[in-house]
């Protein structure tokens, strides 16, 4: 039982912290009435998912720095003139990095569109509180 807790909870703490951040952002999106707070929650939710994927790509062998290095080829590429990539070097998996790089840029664009909608809602209703917007909508 204790071994199970150590292996599944403490050794994989990155995933648990990612879930905590995810639920923090989700709470802000659901429970907060202010539209800016909802967008801040959206950003936190998004970074939590990116943290999950980057954690999937990382490797830990042991020691300071985890025994692995950045996925950057040092020296000449294997199809270059006669040199070989260093033997025995472990890289973090670069595939999740590339996917999450795209996700960050798309997330910034999504945030910009959401902020434009907030400005439009403020021009129309004079408030950015969700319940006041609904009140005015029903009053009209």
């Amino acid at each position, binding site marked *: 039982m204790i071994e199970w807790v150590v292996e599944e909870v403490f050794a994989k703490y990155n995933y648990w912290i990612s879930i905590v951040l995810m639920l923090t952002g989700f709470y802000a999106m659901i429970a907060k*009435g*202010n539209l*800016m707070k909802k967008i*801040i929650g959206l*950003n936190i939710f998004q*970074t939590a998912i990116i943290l999950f994927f980057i954690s999937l790509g990382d490797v830990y062998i042991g020691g300071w720095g985890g025994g692995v290095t950045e996925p950057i080829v040092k020296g000449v590429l294997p199809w270059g003139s006669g040199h070989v990539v260093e033997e025995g070097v472990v890289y973090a998996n670069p595939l999740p990095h590339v996917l999450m790089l795209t996700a*960050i840029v798309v997330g910034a664009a999504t945030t910009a569109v959401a902020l434009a909608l907030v400005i439009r809602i403020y021009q129309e209703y004079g408030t950015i509180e969700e319940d*006041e917007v609904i009140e005015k909508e029903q009053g009209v």
Partner: protein
Amino acid sequence: MIVPLDLIALFFLVVIAIAAITVRDLLAAIVLLSAYSFVIATVWVEMHAVDVGFTEAAVGAGATTAFMIATLARTKREEKR
């Protein structure tokens, strides 16, 4: 990853996230979100994802914060209740 640095940075991350959604002043919330982006950029560099790290520092901590402050200049600063 570098485990002690990772643990400290992730702890700060959770604290800053909760502070950012709790604080009443929206400008303070936006600045806290910018700090959050910067800490998570540090986490990514330390997890050997350097490309993601500097993209987050430029786009997340820079551009998104500028957009949000520009929005706040056109709307209200205080949150109700």
